[in-house]
């Protein structure tokens, strides 16, 4: 239970004032911590030590503005999950802990021309089962493509473009992917042989845990104009959501560089309240090497989601015996929620270049930003928020407000409230699956235990998370989708 000060700014914003001295009594905050929450959420988030982590982040050298936390905030390593922090592009630091182990964990949403009324429960089962077969998933899942580890360079350098050129998907998918599916700062020579060896056999796999493929139907459209522009036409429309990241490649990149940063902290004389905030000055070799390697992890994840997209389309082709193009299966957008990026923002009236760390937070750029695909630039970027497998997911749009106060960032999902162990103790996988079946949701899990671990009851309610970001104006509701079927790794 966290007992520090939280001052109410308005219905959706709370402040940890910089006068707070931390649990140690010796914390020196250089800025405020701002948590997006409402009164109900506030009580929940005091249950773990995440607010203390929000306060700790303010000690990063060269932090610009405040340390921010989204309503789905929970305790993480060093930085909270759901944290956003910007550091000055010249005088700031870069911190691998502000990105996390699963570099470019993210979500991709596909739209179709199919309608829920076209799908019987038997059809839904067929689609899910076909995706389960075509997309490797689960513990120790091996990709279907076997690249030698020293053949991974092009993937790391070029991301989704590599995948499209290798026959996975359509050229137009790239324009609807954050960064066009490739971070150009990627430098494969900065990635260890270990990370390449761990990544190569896992390229083109979903993984396990909270990663999933979901068949969804549009349940409600809140913003018809934006929805139309995003390709969401009517309630009942079928959508597909893909949630995965950079697999062992990203995990190993983070592991390798954390070790280097442990030394960097001493070398540069940086004082931190938690060693897991380890960071290095932006212009140091340590920071730049990490940034180049991280971009490789980002590109690996883009390629991974691109390959999975291709297999999702093949699955639909198998089931419906029609070309995927006839059914749409177009990429609405692909967003990253564990990443650090060099971006230009207006801060206190001046243009400022900053490294924005988003750990369990999604970019939510408003209208007219050049980074947003031209076709969406009038309304702001699509933001994809996955919920747990029994509730719903959201399509939001980025806003001017997010640009003005949250470095163009918003939440990333529901967030766990209960340990996997506790979930397994409370529920059996079979009962979770049969409860979902009664709600019309078909689950195909790599193992029944995963269904128990991922029980909807172990997660925060995604509706209340999104109500807060909508109420605060840092991303606005466009449409809500309900699950029809789920592939769980």
């Amino acid at each position, binding site marked *: 239970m966290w007992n520090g000060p939280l001052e109410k700014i308005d219905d959706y914003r709370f402040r940890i004032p910089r006068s707070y001295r931390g649990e140690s009594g010796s914390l020196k905050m250089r800025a405020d911590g701002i948590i997006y929450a409402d009164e109900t959420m506030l009580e929940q988030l005091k249950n*773990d030590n995440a607010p203390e982590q929000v306060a700790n982040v303010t000690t990063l050298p060269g932090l610009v503005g405040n340390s921010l936390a989204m309503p789905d905030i*929970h*305790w*993480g*390593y060093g930085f909270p*999950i759901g944290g956003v922090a910007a550091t000055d592009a010249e005088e700031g630091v870069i911190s691998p802990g502000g990105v996390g*182990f*699963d570099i470019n964990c993210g979500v991709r949403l596909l739209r179709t021309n199919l309608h829920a009324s076209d799908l019987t429960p038997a059809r839904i089962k067929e689609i899910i089962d076909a995706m389960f077969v075509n997309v490797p998933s*689960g*513990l*120790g899942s*091996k990709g279907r493509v076997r690249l030698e*580890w020293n053949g991974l360079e092009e993937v790391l350098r070029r991301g989704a473009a590599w995948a499209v050129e290798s026959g996975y998907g359509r050229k137009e998918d790239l324009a609807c992917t954050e960064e066009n599916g490739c971070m150009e700062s990627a430098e494969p020579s900065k990635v260890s042989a*270990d990370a390449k*060896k*761990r990544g*190569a*056999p*896992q390229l083109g796999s979903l*993984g*396990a*845990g909270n990663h999933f493929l979901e068949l969804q139907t549009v349940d409600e459209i809140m913003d018809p104009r934006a929805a139309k522009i995003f390709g969401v036409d009517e309630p009942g429309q079928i959508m597909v959501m893909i949630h995965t990241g950079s697999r*062992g490649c990203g*995990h*190993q990149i*983070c*592991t390798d560089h*954390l*070790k280097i940063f*442990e030394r960097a902290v001493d070398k540069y004389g940086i004082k931190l309240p938690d*060693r*897991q905030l380890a960071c290095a000055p932006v212009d140091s070799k340590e920071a730049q090497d990490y940034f180049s390697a991280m971009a490789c992890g980002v590109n690996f994840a883009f390629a991974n989601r691109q390959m999975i997209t291709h297999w999702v389309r093949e699955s639909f082709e198998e089931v419906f015996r029609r070309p995927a193009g006839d059914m749409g299966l177009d990429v609405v957008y692909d967003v990253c929620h564990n990443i650090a990026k060099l971006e230009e923002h207006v801060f206190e009236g001046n243009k400022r270049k900053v490294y924005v760390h988003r750990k369990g937070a999604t970019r939510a750029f408003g209208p007219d930003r050049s980074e947003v695909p031209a076709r969406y630039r009038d309304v702001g970027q699509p933001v994809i928020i996955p919920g747990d497998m029994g509730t719903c997911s959201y399509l939001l749009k980025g806003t001017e407000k997010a640009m003005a106060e949250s470095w163009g960032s918003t939440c990333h999902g529901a967030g*766990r*409230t*209960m*340990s*996997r*162990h*506790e979930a397994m103790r409370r529920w059996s996988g079979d009962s979770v699956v049969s409860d979902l079946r009664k709600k019309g949701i078909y689950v195909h899990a*790599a*193992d029944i*235990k*995963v269904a128990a*671990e991922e029980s909807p009851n172990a997660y925060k309610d995604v509706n209340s998370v999104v109500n807060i970001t909508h109420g605060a104006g840092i991303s606005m509701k466009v449409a809500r989708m309900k699950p029809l079927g789920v592939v769980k*790794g």
Partner: protein
Amino acid sequence: MSSGYSLITHTADVGLEAWGPSLSDAFAQAARGMFDIITDSSKIAPAVKREFSLAAENPEELLVDFLNRLLFYNGAEFLVFGRFDIDVDADGRSLQASVWGEEYDRSRHGYGAEIKAVTYHLLNVCKPLNGKNAKVSVLFDV
């Protein structure tokens, strides 16, 4: 004195505390615990052997490097291990390891959790002192 481990459960993650008469024993128990989180280490046949040595600045870092090395074999070669012969030097800053296991097989080994990484959180290594067990603790990102 006995050896063993127990799980630490956390909202989003899982960790363990392991102990034994020597650091070598505690490290081996930590490795066994980690593979019990991933699968069921008692069902793993000793078909493949991997040997390695590691050196680190301190015992905590040595433990992280050791477990990460095993995770690397798990990710790169899909190996899971069930037998560990670990020799940690008295100062806790280097080790020689021989580990035995086989390729993961879902139907035979059972299904656990995918561990992404070993973290520095709750990380602790206590050498055996005055007849007390050596004890280590570590948290994983799953």
